[in-house]
C-alpha cells in the first residue's frame, strides 16, 4: 500500500467517522430510546389523539408551504437569473435573510405584520381570515424560514442551462409554454427537487417561529415539534421520543428519495472504497464509421 493510498483511506475514514459521530450516533440513541419501551408503546404514543393531530397538521401545512414555495421560488429564481433590473443584487442578497435570522425573530416579525393590531391583520380579520393562532400563520412561518431553499437550489442549474436548448425546442416547433415544461423544467429538475424536498423536511421540523405565530393550541395549531416540546416540559419523554422518531423517519425517507431521484440517468453511486478510478462511459469515437455509406 503506498502512502498515497493510506492518505486517501485516512481521509475517507475521517469523513465517514465525522458523519457517524455527529449525525448517526444521536439518531441511534433516539431510536434506541423509542424502542426501549416496546413497539406497542410506540404505536400507542403516536395514536394518542393530540399526537396524531399534531403530526397530521405538521405534514399537511408543510406540504402546502412546500407547494407554494416550489412555484414562487421557481419564478423568483427565473427572474433573478434571467432578468436584469435595478436592485437585483439587493433582492438576491435578501433571499438569504431567513437563513440568518433566528426563527424566533422571524415569528415576531410575522406576528407584528399580521397581528390584530396591525393594518394588514385587521383588514384580513374583517375579510374573515385569521392568520395568528391559526393554520395560515403556521404556513406563513414555514414559508418564511424555507424560502431560500428552492431559489438557491435552482439558481445554479438555471445559470448552467444554455438558452440554446430552449431555442432548439423552438426551431423544432415547440411553443414557449411547451418548451418550459418539456425542456426547462426537466433540465432543472434535480435542482428543483432538491429545493422542494429540503423545504418540506425543514418545514416539518420548524419550531421557533411557529410557536410564536401559532401558539400551542392542542388539536388546532399545535405542530409536532411544539407537541414534542410540550411533552418534554411535562415530563413525558417517551411520547416526545416517539413523535420525534416518526418525524425523523419521514424526513429520512424524503431525503433518500431525493438522492435516488436526482441522480443523473445512467449514473452510479460513488463507491466508498475504490482504489483506481476506471474510465466509465464510452466517450471514444472515431467520428464517422465510413462503412455506412
Amino acid at each position: 500500500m503506498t502512502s498515497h493510498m493510506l492518505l486517501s483511506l485516512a481521509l475517507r475514514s475521517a469523513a465517514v467517522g465525522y458523519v457517524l459521530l455527529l449525525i448517526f450516533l444521536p439518531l441511534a440513541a433516539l431510536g434506541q430510546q423509542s424502542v426501549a419501551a416496546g413497539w406497542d408503546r410506540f404505536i400507542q404514543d403516536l395514536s394518542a389523539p393530540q399526537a396524531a393531530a399534531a403530526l397530521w397538521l405538521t405534514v399537511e401545512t408543510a406540504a402546502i408551504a412546500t407547494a407554494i414555495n416550489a412555484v414562487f421560488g421557481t419564478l423568483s429564481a427565473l427572474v433573478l437569473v434571467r432578468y436584469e433590473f435595478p436592485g437585483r443584487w439587493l433582492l438576491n442578497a435578501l433571499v438569504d435573510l431567513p437563513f440568518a435570522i433566528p426563527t424566533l425573530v422571524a415569528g415576531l416579525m410575522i406576528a407584528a405584520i399580521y397581528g390584530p393590531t396591525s393594518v394588514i391583520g385587521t383588514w384580513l380579520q374583517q375579510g374573515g381570515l385569521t392568520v395568528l393562532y391559526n393554520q395560515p400563520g403556521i404556513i406563513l412561518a414555514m414559508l418564511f424560514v424555507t424560502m431560500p431553499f428552492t431559489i438557491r437550489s435552482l439558481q445554479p442549474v438555471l445559470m448552467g442551462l444554455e438558452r440554446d436548448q430552449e431555442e432548439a425546442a423552438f426551431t423544432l416547433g415547440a411553443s414557449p409554454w411547451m418548451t418550459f415544461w418539456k425542456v426547462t423544467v426537466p433540465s432543472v429538475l434535480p435542482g428543483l427537487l432538491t429545493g422542494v424536498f429540503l423545504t418540506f423536511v425543514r418545514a416539518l421540523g420548524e419550531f421557533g417561529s411557529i410557536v410564536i405565530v401559532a401558539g400551542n393550541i392542542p388539536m388546532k395549531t399545535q405542530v409536532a415539534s411544539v407537541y414534542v416540546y410540550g411533552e418534554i416540559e411535562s415530563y413525558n419523554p417517551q411520547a416526545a421520543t416517539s413523535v420525534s422518531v416518526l418525524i425523523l423517519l419521514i424526513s429520512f425517507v424524503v431525503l433518500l428519495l431525493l438522492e435516488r431521484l436526482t441522480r443523473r440517468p445512467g449514473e452510479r453511486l460513488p463507491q466508498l472504497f475504490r482504489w483506481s478510478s476506471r474510465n466509465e462511459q464510452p466517450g471514444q469515437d472515431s467520428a464517422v464509421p465510413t462503412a455506412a455509406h
Partner: protein
Amino acid sequence: MKIEVRGLTKKFGSGTAVGNVSFVVNEGELLGLLGPSGSGKTTVLRLIAGLEVPTSGDIFIDGKRVNDLTVQERNIGFVFQHYALFKHLTVFDNIAFGLKIKKWNRHDIEQRVLELLALMSLDGLGRRYPHQLSGGQRQRVAIARALAPRPSVLLMDEPFGAVDAKVRQELREWLIRLHTDLNVTSLFVTHDQEEAMEVSGRIIVFSKGKLEQAGSPADVYEEPATEFVARFIGSMNIVEGIVRRGQVQVGSLEFPAPGFSDGQKLQVGFRPYYVKVAEDATRYRQQAKLRHVYFLGVAYRLEIETADGLVLRSRMNKEEFRRYRFVVGQAVSFAVTHFRILPQESGGPSTDIEAGKPIPGPLTP
C-alpha cells in the same frame, strides 16, 4: 427550398450587426457563410431561422415572405454550435422531439428515428444520453434531430467548431456525402476558410456585417472582389504603389495598369505561388535576399526581402525546392508571374474606372 434575403439589416443598440445584406441560396445548394468572428454571419443565420427579428429587410423561404412567421412556423432545421442537445432525453427522444411536437403517430416516429440513426451511423446508440456520447456523435445527433421533421431548409451554426481537428475533417466529408444524398437546401456558418472552401458549393464572405463577395470557392480564391476577401481567403502578397506612365510602381517592381491615370494610388495582390524564386541572380529580373524558409508539409514557403525593404512570400513545391540549394541570407532573383489590381475600397481616390472590376495581369514586370 430556396432561401432569399433582401436588404437584411439588424441593429443591436447603436451597433449594426448586419447591414443591408442580400443573397440567394438556391434549392438544394450547400452554401457557406464565411467570415471572422463578429462579422454578423451567425446573426444572419438566426434572422433566417426567426430566432432574431430583423430591423429591416425581407426573408423569403420557398418564395414566401416569412418575416411575420414565428420560428416555430418556419419549418427550418437548426444545428447549434454547441449541439444544444436535450440533456435529460435519450438520443432517441432527442431526435423524436420535433416529431412528437408535430403529433406524428408512434409507429411513424419510431421508423423515422431509426432511419435517421442509421443514416447518421448512430445505430444502437438510441438509448444513450448525450453525456455518454463523444463530440462527433453529439454533432450527428444534433443534425439528425434537426432533419427529423423534414425541414424545408437546414441551417448550421459553426457545425464543426466544437470537435477536434481530426474528427472535424471526417465530419466535413460526411456532411458533403449527406448533403449529396438528401439534397436539402443547407446554409452553414464558419470562420474557417478551409472548411468553407472544402464543404460549400458556393461561399458568401462577410466582414463587419457586410457581404463582401459571393461565389464559388474557386471564384472567391482566384478573383477576390475586395481587399478584405483577398487577405482573408488564403495567403496573398498585397503591395501598394502609384501609377506612373501606365505602370504601378512599387519600389523596383512595376505592374502594368492600363487605363489608370498617373498619380493614382493602387493596391496590387499576388498569391505566393506566383512569386518565382531562383538562386541564380540572373535567372529573373528582380533581386532580393532570402530571409526565411518555412516547411509546410506539402510545400515550402520562402520569405524574401528586396533592397527597398519590401517583404514577399513565395510558395514552392517540394520537387522544385529540391532542385535548388537555398541558404537563408543568400541573394536570390525573383519574378511575379501573375497579379491582380485590387478593387478600390470605397472612399478611396476617385477614379473614372469601374470600381470592383478587377483587371487580370498576366505579365512579368
